């Protein structure tokens, strides 16, 4: 186990964790403030990736595509919130689960309708598709460095927004005690719409960053959505800080498990175990972690509710 291997895997884990944070942040705010379970959050990520891919293709520039896609997804999110989702705020969790599940289905089919069943190609900007020499003898993909940088910048921006601005104050008040915030005169409707739009924009950024690494395809948001839910349960619903810690934790643990378990199992139980059991075990580990956190801290690591 060389130092470079550890360094590279740590960077990969950091990269994954930061992207997970972008998704989890929006999800936890929506849940914390509007008390709404949103299964369609992953669909915003997917739509973001598709819009960015389409815009990049049309304009020939990754950056233009990114900007256009993020703006478009934010608009879509706002439209979705004002027309359909706001009717679900007052409803019970079951209705929210099913209503947003319905939207998930519609988004999947809608995307398939518009762009077809074949995945879309989203290429990183040509300047960043090569390696960067971080240490002598160790080159790391430039694009992954961009992803990490983007994640950190957005995280910093979110922190500033939540702790230093008026909007952020209202967000924190709403997450902590909604009735009180209402009583103090917060314009709830606008706040909710703003939060949802912000969440959608964050999803789109994640989609644009992960699209070139994975694939821009129908249903791409679903696996990562489940992980995002696990993150916010661990981190504490409504807490952006919790989402950050939780996402990094899950990102690093998931990446480490996928890297370390196969050779470990190979040594213990042979190569078949390494390729069959290790990936499953790595996935299960995340859920076991969630169950463990819930056992000791039922409200998550950083509960925001009073």
């Amino acid at each position: 186990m060389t130092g470079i291997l550890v360094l590279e895997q740590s960077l990969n884990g950091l990269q994954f964790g930061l992207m997970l944070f972008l998704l989890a942040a929006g999800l936890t705010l929506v849940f914390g403030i509007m008390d709404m379970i949103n299964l369609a959050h992953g669909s915003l990520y997917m739509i973001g990736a598709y819009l960015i891919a389409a815009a990049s293709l049309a304009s020939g520039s990754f950056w233009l595509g990114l900007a256009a896609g993020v703006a478009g997804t934010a608009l879509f999110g706002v439209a979705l919130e004002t027309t359909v989702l706001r009717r679900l705020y007052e409803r019970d969790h079951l209705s929210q689960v099913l209503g947003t599940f319905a939207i998930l289905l519609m988004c999947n089919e809608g995307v398939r309708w518009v762009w077809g069943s074949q995945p879309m190609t989203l290429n990183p900007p040509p300047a960043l598709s090569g390696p960067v020499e971080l240490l002598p003898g160790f080159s790391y993909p430039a694009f992954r460095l961009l992803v990490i940088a983007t994640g950190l910048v957005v995280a910093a921006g979110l922190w500033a927004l939540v702790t230093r601005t008026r909007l952020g104050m209202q967000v924190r008040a709403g997450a902590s005690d909604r009735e009180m915030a209402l009583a103090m005169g917060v314009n709830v409707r606008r706040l909710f719409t703003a939060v949802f739009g912000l969440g959608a924009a964050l999803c789109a950024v994640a989609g644009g960053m992960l699209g070139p690494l994975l694939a821009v395809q129908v249903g791409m948001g679903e696996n990562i959505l489940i992980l995002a839910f696990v993150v916010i349960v661990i981190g504490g619903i409504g807490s952006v800080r919790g989402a950050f810690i939780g996402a990094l934790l899950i990102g690093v643990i998931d990446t480490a498990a996928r890297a370390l378990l196969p050779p470990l199992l190979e040594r213990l139980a042979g190569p078949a175990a390494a390729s069959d059991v290790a990936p499953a075990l790595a996935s299960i580990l995340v859920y076991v972690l969630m169950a463990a956190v819930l056992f000791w801290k039922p409200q998550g690591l950083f509960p925001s509710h009073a």
Partner: protein
Amino acid sequence: MKWTSVRVVALAASLAVTAGAAQAADAVKVGLLSTLSGPGSGLGIDIRDGFQLAVKHAGGKLGGLPAEVVVVDDQQNPDVARQSAERLVKRDKVDFMTGIVFSNLLLAVAPPVFQSNTFYISANAGPSQLAGTQCNPYYFNVAYQNDNQHEAMGKTVTDKGFKRVALLAPNYPAGKDALAGFKRYFKGEVVSETYTPLNQLDYGSEVSKMRAAKPDAVYIFLPGGLGINFIKQFVGAGLSKEMTLFGPGFSADEDVIRAVGEPMLGMFNTSQWAHDLDNAANKRFVADFQKEYGRLPTLYAAQGYDAARLMDAAVRDTKGKLDDKKAVRKALEAARFESVRGAFKFNTNHHPVQDYYLRVITKDSQGRVTNRTLGTVFKAHADAYASTCKMPS
């Protein structure tokens, strides 16, 4: 479940309307079940397009009878594949089945298809199980057996003098067959042999392990979107400067080249077909495919095309009497058709005996990045499982 019904001839459509009508030999029904969505969709789409081009070349007919091709998406899901196959053979009562890309899906679909006495002509998946101990009179593979291209690469990599190789393939029957085939002919040291989940798209972990292991060459079998992702990440991590990448034809064909582009220049690969093979059938196929679909065909398209041509020959030789299963089988075994690979012959286990060529990715005279055939690695090569197949007569 997704259905796309493609009526090649409207006449055949009206014939099929009355449910339960006697399946008289006045039309040929083909069920084309393939992966048309997800990262593997490029392969299925090519098989479908090649198949339909062949039907078009025959005037919308197969063996002189109007052809109805029912196209269904298996969504790369064994459940969906199985249910769709059951519908095709039980409700639609197709005469032939074809199209599946992935070997795991084929193995899930095979039992109900064979049980209903329907012929399956594989245009891609060639698992070793169906070439050896589980061979079946109703199963024909017009493409290849899974191990073959990798066997040819194993020999090529040995001949080129590479001593330490890292291996990577997805964890499913064809992936296992691939590395088994490679190791059968590779005489050097296997530094690592990794099987990744079939749906894994991020190879960051595998790339960093290769960096640490420092082999001189890396051999991958990653079909379709998987290969595209890996190659981009491999090049992005700078590993292409430290070790040479090899792959079978699957991982280096037009679909991957279109997505990855110039970084693939110089990559060697082997295949049983190439678009510059010099025979009349191939020239016509390649020219018309480009005209019809606006892109160069991959080997998947060539396989789809040949599957249709094989069916065409069988229907013609049995004079449309498709209910006589023994006669159809004999006609299929005789394989009297012009393949885009030249002369075509089946082995006793219904798999082809054919040549395997070495190709390299270069720029052609028009400046396009594409494959060029260099020479032959194996002549008249049979698969390693034929001897274990006890084909019932």
